[in-house]
């Protein structure tokens, strides 16, 4: 069996990082983000990153950590609220941002991973998002052309992984992770648990091992909650 399991995040990222690279990351808000790998990228000091990620984390968590250290040059995201440092860098022109509607972003990552160079969507037609992009009529309706995204490296977080790189995500922590896994030229996955070969039911695998080149046991699983909302227990 080819050895995909690495002992820790710096080893799993060894040789993959370079200044000016494109990194795609899974996660929605702070849910399902590769915490361990983000910390290792902070430690590595690599700079000039273009980050493809739905969100930008918060000031001291998630991709916010890489913004704080100014390792990110550009974000391709759908929503970047909840991050003051982001706001400061953006308004001062230090940080570039390419806004992408959330569904279009997910589809662009999927397309890049699936060899689809571009696709036509109604999303954004007639808005700033479509400015400068090609449009085309299908059945009398206008669609805008969006392009596939490919990253030099994808970092994803899964619940369980096996030595073949098969991944299972947990609940809404799945989100952008499967698409990120497909769109990386190299994909590194951190998992909460590494299981034995054959432990997965083949019908339950969310992300097949073909997309994962390196795997490690996640050491950071804080899973910070952004909006802790509760109801009162019924008496």
């Amino acid at each position, binding site marked *: 069996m080819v050895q995909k399991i690495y002992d820790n995040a710096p080893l799993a990222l060894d040789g993959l990082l370079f200044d000016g690279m494109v990194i795609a990351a899974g996660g929605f808000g*702070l849910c399902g983000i590769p915490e361990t790998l983000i910390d290792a990228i902070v430690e590595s000091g690599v700079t000039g990153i273009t980050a493809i990620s739905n969100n930008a984390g918060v000031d001291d968590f998630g991709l916010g950590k890489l913004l704080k250290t100014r390792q990110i040059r550009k974000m391709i995201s759908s929503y970047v609220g909840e991050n003051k440092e982001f706001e400061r860098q953006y308004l001062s022109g230090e940080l570039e941002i390419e806004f992408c509607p959330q*569904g279009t972003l997910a589809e662009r990552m999927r397309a890049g991973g699936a060899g689809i160079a571009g696709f036509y969507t*109604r999303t954004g037609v007639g808005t700033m998002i479509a400015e400068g992009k090609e449009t085309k009529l299908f059945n009398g309706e206008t669609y805008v052309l969006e392009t596939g995204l490919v990253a030099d490296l994808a970092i994803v977080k899964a619940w369980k992984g096996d030595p073949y790189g098969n991944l299972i995500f947990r609940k809404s922590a799945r989100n952008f992770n499967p698409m990120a896994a497909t769109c990386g030229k190299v994909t590194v996955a951190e998992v909460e648990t590494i299981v034995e070969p054959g432990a997965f039911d083949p019908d339950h695998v969310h992300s097949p091992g073909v997309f994962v080149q390196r795997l490690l046991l996640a050491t950071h699983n804080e899973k910070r909650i952004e909006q802790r909302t509760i109801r009162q227990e019924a008496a």
Partner: protein
Amino acid sequence: MPWTRDDMAALAAQELLDGFYVNLGIGIPTLVANHIAPGVDVTLQSENGMLGLGPFPTEADIDADIINAGKQTITELDRTSYVSSADSFGMIRGGHIQLSVLGAMEVAENGDLANWMVPGKMVKGPGGAMDLVAGVGRIIVLMDHVDKAGTAKFRKSCTLPLTGANVVDMIITNLAIFQRPDRRSPFFLKAIAPNVLPDEVRAKTEAHYLEMPA
């Protein structure tokens, strides 16, 4: 007496029909879930990949891996399923979600919607709003009738950058409800809040609209 936020949510909830799959936006639209009539079976979808949202959890049930698109902790139901973001927006873009309720900064009389950015201010991004208005079958907007400066939010045309062009089907404000039968038709005034006069609605609305049908 203008409608409260809960009144507005309750009015929107009446538009949720049995069997509908519905996406509720962040803010007041989230309250709509509290007003769904008994016996009306609605499945709530959240664009981060959850279909079949339950109520907020109790303190004991909080699970960081179960959140809605507002990043709020939430619970499962016996119908719940999870999908990737790509598949979730496949549902939305593909027209499989019947109804979405969203907030707005401005709506134009032609159905244009603006709810994602104010030039000169920090732009947070469109999130999933552009996908929702482009893909969901019917769009209901919940918003105050006028902004803090007293300016009409239902306007001849939007002054702010659009979220979608000609995408709104119904507007519920604290003063009135506007609706249109399809996206080629103008809006008409469908209802007015108790003790609010038609003249007040007219005065506080820049958009052209048809009067209430008799």
